[in-house]
């Protein structure tokens, strides 16, 4: 069941009503029930793995919490990592590994034909494994002090608003919320509604409008001309941003309806003035997870190498982020490019500063230039990630450098402008009101008018248009 289906909206209204009508002590049981029911609507078989990993992690986490010896604690962390990452590797990466091994053997002139397996990829596995691992890490770093029941932990591990595509919430942030009593607060409903409204608009009206066009151009670029391909590349950047930011808003909104605060996953990333800044604004829950649990330990380990140690840690970090998303070489290249951008900026920091001084670039012009460069680098990296490999990158770039223009490209440009305008309006309102739920901060007549019109469009779109799946749900 997708977030953008009408049945989901209906069921959410009913579910929230039942949840708050039930006595407080039963709310976690109801939440757990909702989690598993929601997850099983995709494929009930996948709940077996979810429940197994939940049980194992709960067991290891509790042992870890009660362990006195640091070495023993360390072994428990290793055990948890082995169990979770093996499951992740098998379900998500096994076939990629076998395919790559076969390809590599061909390059070496060897004849091995290892066969891949017909594996069902459990939905959201990358998200819930990372979320449950925070329970282990938070125990290890002792950011969790309290004891939690299996019911509370299972509700956290399978938390339905975030299980499919995040945000990846920390155990230390979500578990205390699950433990505490949650009462009906009308402002939670209002904020949840505002977040869902904006999220739906981003996903259905902005992202999907670009998506169908982008899919066709990327599937058969040879049938399109230079200007059209170039605009489709920019459109993809807006598609994936609005698709994922839309999902995250809906997830946060749904969580809010049930009384939970979830981490903000996006902060206007296309206004970032450097790639490092971009990663503080894009898929924040993942980048902070990776920073805390992968980058910092690596940086510490490579500290003897100085600046080059940092660069090594950055490169590994981003390649892992790339592979985490999708086991494909396009994502490896995307991660590699992100690492390269940041490494380049570390290595050339002094040089760039003196260059900026020499051309006397300052103030808003400097920030604007930095934002534009960051945006273009991001668009290029996203373009590489969207292709099916280096061959497609070459083909599409060759088409672009033909510099042919067509009347149709003007229509493409209008699509880009409309997408840009809608994205910009939402982003600027978020900045002005310092909230994703800016809608609730409007004065009442404006708030109601905007809500009515947006929901009218959303419902009409839900009824009539072809809806694309969330891009990040496949990761």
């Amino acid at each position, binding site marked *: 069941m997708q977030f953008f289906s009408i049945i989901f909206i209906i069921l959410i209204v009913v579910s929230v009503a039942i949840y708050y009508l039930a006595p407080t002590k039963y709310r976690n049981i109801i939440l757990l029930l909702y989690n598993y029911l929601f997850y099983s609507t995709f494929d009930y078989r996948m709940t077996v793995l979810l429940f197994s990993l939940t049980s194992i992690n709960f067991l290891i986490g509790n042992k870890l919490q009660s362990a006195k010896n640091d070495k023993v604690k360390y072994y428990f962390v290793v055990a948890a990592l082995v169990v979770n990452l093996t499951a992740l590797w098998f379900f998500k990466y096994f076939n990629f590994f076998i395919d790559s091994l076969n390809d590599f053997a061909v390059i070496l002139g060897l004849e091995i034909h290892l066969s891949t397996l017909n594996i069902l990829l459990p939905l959201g596995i990358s998200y819930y494994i990372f979320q449950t691992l925070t329970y282990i890490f938070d125990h290890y770093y002792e950011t969790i002090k309290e004891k939690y029941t299996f019911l509370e932990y299972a509700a956290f591990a399978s938390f339905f608003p975030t299980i499919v595509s995040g945000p990846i919430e920390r155990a230390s942030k979500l578990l205390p919320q699950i433990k505490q009593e949650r009462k009906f607060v009308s402002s939670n409903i209002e904020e949840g509604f505002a977040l869902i409204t904006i999220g739906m608009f981003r996903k259905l009206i902005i992202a999907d409008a670009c998506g169908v066009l982008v899919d066709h151009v990327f599937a058969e670029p040879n049938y399109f001309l230079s200007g059209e391909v170039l605009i489709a590349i920019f459109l993809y950047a807006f598609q994936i941003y609005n698709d994922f930011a839309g999902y995250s808003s809906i997830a946060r909104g749904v969580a809010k309806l049930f009384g939970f605060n979830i981490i903000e996953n996006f902060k206007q990333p296309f206004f970032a003035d450097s790639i490092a800044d971009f990663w503080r604004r894009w898929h924040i829950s993942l980048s902070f997870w990776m920073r805390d649990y992968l980058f910092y330990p690596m940086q510490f380990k490579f500290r003897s190498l100085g600046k080059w140690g940092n660069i090594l840690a950055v490169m590994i970090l981003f390649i892992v982020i790339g592979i985490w998303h999708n086991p494909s070489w396009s994502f490896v290249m995307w991660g590699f490019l992100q690492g390269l951008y940041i490494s380049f900026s570390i290595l050339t920091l002094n040089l760039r500063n003196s260059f900026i001084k020499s051309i006397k670039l300052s103030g808003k012009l400097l920030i604007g230039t930095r934002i534009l460069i960051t945006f273009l680098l991001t668009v290029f990296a996203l373009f590489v990630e969207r292709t099916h490999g280096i061959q497609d990158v070459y083909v599409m770039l060759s088409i672009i450098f033909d510099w042919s223009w067509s009347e*149709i490209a003007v229509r493409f440009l209008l699509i880009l402008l409309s997408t840009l305008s809608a994205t910009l309006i939402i982003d600027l309102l978020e900045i002005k009101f310092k909230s994703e739920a800016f809608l609730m901060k409007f*004065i009442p007549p404006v708030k109601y008018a905007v809500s009515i019109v947006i929901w009218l469009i959303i419902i009409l779109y839900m009824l009539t248009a072809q809806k694309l799946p969330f891009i990040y749900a496949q990761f």
Partner: protein
Amino acid sequence: MLPLKNIVLFVVTILALLLYIEIYLRWSGVSNPSYVYDNDIVGRTHNKDYNIIITGAEGFCIDKVNKYGYVGPDYPKERNTSAIRIALLGSSYIEGLQVFRRNRFSTIFEQELTKKLNHPVEVLNFGIGGDDFRGMYTRYQKLVKAYNPDYVLFIIQGESLLRRKTIPSPDLMIENDSLVFNYDFLKSSESGVRHRFRLLREFGLGNLVKEAFEVYYTGRLPKIVLDNFYIEPEKNNVKKNNNDSTKFYELNSKIVESLFKENKNSRFTNLIIEMEEIPTIYSTLLDSINFPRILLYQDLKQYKPEDLNFWRASGIMGHWNNFAHRVVGETLADEISTFISTDSGHFKTAKKD
């Protein structure tokens, strides 16, 4: 704040937002004013000068209806050149709005045929989604003939001969052994609904409202609302209505007879192009009178259905894809150039002109 001020603010916000949404829907291509309307003479037809944007699992196309009301280059009714003029009639496959005009089979057909005959060719595409053989005949009589084509290609599939009407258009009846147009569709409740929505369809937002209403009207609402939870009701095993096939055969054979007469008595040459194998009863009929027909499906047998109908963008089977449009355009050009070269009539006259 005063209640009146609130009301004014509420209304102004709604209007401003609706205006923005309308512009957004049109520019982004989410919804444009409808590029088709129900014409009182030929039924469903294209709206002159309207923008087209199709974004779906089976295609993506940005185009514009020309000033004469069909999709393609502006060829007027009056013929000012010596070019050979070919009119195409058919369903959505022929309309070809799944691909851009430059990749559409009709464009490729025109280019290839021009090259092969070494003589200018004008291809006028009157194909429209949902049209059947009877609809094609109506369009031919009421619209296409006015454009003075040399050749008219009725491009059909099996279902073009057997299907009940899917778009509002005049039906055909046999009265006193001749074909008569029946305009009852104008009085139908569906037509009434369409007319009521006519003004709304002039807006992107209005067109969305109309489509949403159509979802309800055609009974698709439960399926869309319930999504995965929807259980398809068991279909009753309705016996195939033999009356329908007999009725269709009577009408279709009368149409063939009429077209055949026109081939003899007018300057038009009508051809039937078969994209799929048609029922034997029809091929026997066509052969018995030696009606000019091209069995294009036989030329296309070397391709698998997934070569011609598979959409890489969505991974589904559907209309012809970009590759297929090229193949069909080139193959048809081959066949028609052979036909025209051996046809004693128009081509030679056209060349002399």
